[in-house]
């Protein structure tokens, strides 16, 4: 029953092992010097201006929320898509209702400008 999962586990372990080898290699093989001015964050050669932890604009937050909701919509569409032929028009109409309600939300977001300017 779980036969299909062993290879995935092995792949995860192998990929993590490769990543650690690479990270380890760079620490071991590379030169070591005192960092001095190299340790400053890169700003085209001048001293950094301003703070680094400015708050992120709210629109990114709204994008993330919208993403969750539409992702859930895709999740619900997947089981329907697999059995769509067996369910026929009845299933299609119920999915149509589902998608319509979600798209009402999408058009509301569009109208209120939540998806505007990136």
């Amino acid at each position, binding site marked *: 029953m779980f036969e299909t999962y062993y290879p995935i586990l092995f792949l995860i372990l192998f990929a993590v092992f490769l990543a650690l080898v690479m990270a380890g290699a760079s620490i071991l093989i590379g030169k070591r010097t005192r960092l001095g001015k190299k340790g400053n964050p890169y700003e085209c050669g001048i001293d950094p201006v301003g703070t680094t932890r400015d708050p992120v604009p709210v629109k990114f*937050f709204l994008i993330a929320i919208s993403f969750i909701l539409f992702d859930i919509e895709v999740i619900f569409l997947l089981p329907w898509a697999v059995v769509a032929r067996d369910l026929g028009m009845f299933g299609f109409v*119920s999915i149509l209702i589902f998608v319509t309600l979600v798209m009402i939300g999408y058009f509301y977001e569009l109208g209120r400008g939540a998806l505007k300017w990136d």
Partner: protein
Amino acid sequence: MEAVQPNVGFVFGLFAAIIITSALLVVTLKNIFHCALALIVCLTGVAGIFVLLHAEFLAAVQVLIYVGAVSVLIIFSVMLTSNLASRRIVQTNQNALVAGFAALIFGAGALLLLKLHDIWPKAGSALPDDNVMTIGKLLMTDYMLPFEVVSVLMLAAMIGAIVLARGERS
């Protein structure tokens, strides 16, 4: 060639240890960004438990939604409040010891009750092999009303998010 089952108990114990450890890290670490990362590990452990229960669709959805979307939202919101992320937060106050003691008593009592009265329903039959088809058929037939209500709930969530986030503008 018959398939030899892995020691499910051992794997379950491993996943349970991951979940509990990361959950403890979420509530004890001092840097909130690290707490968010520990939460990601915890949710991935839950997906592992779903795989053990043969609920593969749920495991994939758990990774996709919780780890791939909700945790991203949490990390974005940690980044949104800048001073929150670099400050060392204090997770306990002066009642920590009393609270810990009470939690221990409650936990032990609950475990004892569970051992004495076997109240958890046992699984009726093994899940069908094709999870997704069964879920699809059930969603469209027996559970159609909750399915449509979910879409109304999502609509409400969208409207609510916009009102909360942009309320101060208009």
